């Protein structure tokens, strides 16, 4: 074996790549969570994905558009003209669908639905405190059906 670490950058980079790749194989639970994620594909196939477009936890707040305070986290999801806006506090989630339609909202973790509530005629709904880990809301109305991007809320 020659000099180590390699004197040339290419050699060092190549060894670094090998080291990071074999840094142990990701813990099995991490791989398992990855494999399991595919099962959600078919579940969501008929739903449009409402992309996460705003999260007060990490995005600068557009002036005057949100009412969130220090203890409230506000998020918005968009799918075309449909907006799902929610506020998360220690006591639970309140949300509003736009365009306002009655219907129902199903809250899910990767293990399945954990809560289902009615949406009132002006689009408001409320849910209990979210569990830890990524959560997805399915908003089902007579006019549209969307699924929010997975995001940890707890």
């Amino acid at each position, binding site marked *: *074996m*020659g*000099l*180590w*670490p390699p004197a040339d*950058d*290419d050699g*060092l*980079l*190549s*060894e*670094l*790549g*090998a*080291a*990071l*790749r*074999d*840094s*142990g*194989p*990701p*813990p*099995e*639970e*991490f*791989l398992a*969570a*990855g*494999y399991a*994620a*595919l099962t*959600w*594909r*078919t579940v*969501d196939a008929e739903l449009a*994905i409402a992309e996460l477009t705003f*999260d007060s*936890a*990490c995005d600068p707040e557009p002036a005057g558009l949100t009412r969130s305070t220090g203890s409230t*986290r506000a998020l918005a999801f968009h799918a075309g003209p449909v907006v799902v806006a929610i506020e998360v506090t220690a006591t639970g989630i309140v949300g509003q669908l736009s365009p306002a339609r009655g219907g129902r909202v199903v809250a899910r973790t*990767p293990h399945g639905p954990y809560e289902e509530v009615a949406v009132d005629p002006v689009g408001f709904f409320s849910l209990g405190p979210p569990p*830890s*880990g*990524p959560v*997805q809301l399915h908003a089902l109305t007579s006019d549209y059906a969307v699924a929010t*991007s*997975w*995001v*940890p809320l707890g």
Partner: protein
Amino acid sequence: MAERPDSATRPEVGAAPDVPAADEILAGLVSAAANGDEPAWAELVRRYAPLVLSVIRAHRLNRTDAADVNQTVWLRLVEHLGRVREPAALATWLATTTRRECYRLVRIGRRTQPFDPLDDAVEATIGALLPQDPSAPDENLLRAERRQALRDGFGQLPARCRELLSLLVSDPPASYREIAERLGMPIGSIGPSQARCLRKLRNSPALAAFVGASPDAEGSGGDRDGAVAAGR
């Protein structure tokens, strides 16, 4: 790295027609996974899990947050599969998404202690992957020590260097154009940044024990034992 292929300048399809290029294989996996093919999806997860984890490690999340980010990223990729137009950009998409989700959890502020898959708490999980067989050849042991030193040194680098080097060594490699977009730096500064980061790596305490060790002394046992002590 002057000869590194850069997809910004090379032709889209350069391989011989009857030999599938890496990009075509990847495109096939993405397309099959988008149609629900489990083995294809599993292969994608296996390929990219180390990249996702390397970004997570760089953010020093606790284990719960690290697991949440990991799970969120794969769920997002499932949603995103049907819209992957350029499979070669998948590594960049994953790195960006992972970084954003790490940032989100850091901001939510649930951090308690750093997550390091190599620490004692998870040794049971990955311990089996380290060559601990006493009958294993010394060369394997030496290689494992060196790789550990590289990972330790990598962990001591500034976050920016860890991100850049992670992208440079990702497999399949990210193009300079993708790296430039991802890190918001001019393509022309990638080379110099890479050199600077590798210099920092070379000078990191974790590698210091190896630097300057005479190749002739290797195998004598003495230097290696010193390296073992300093590298861990």
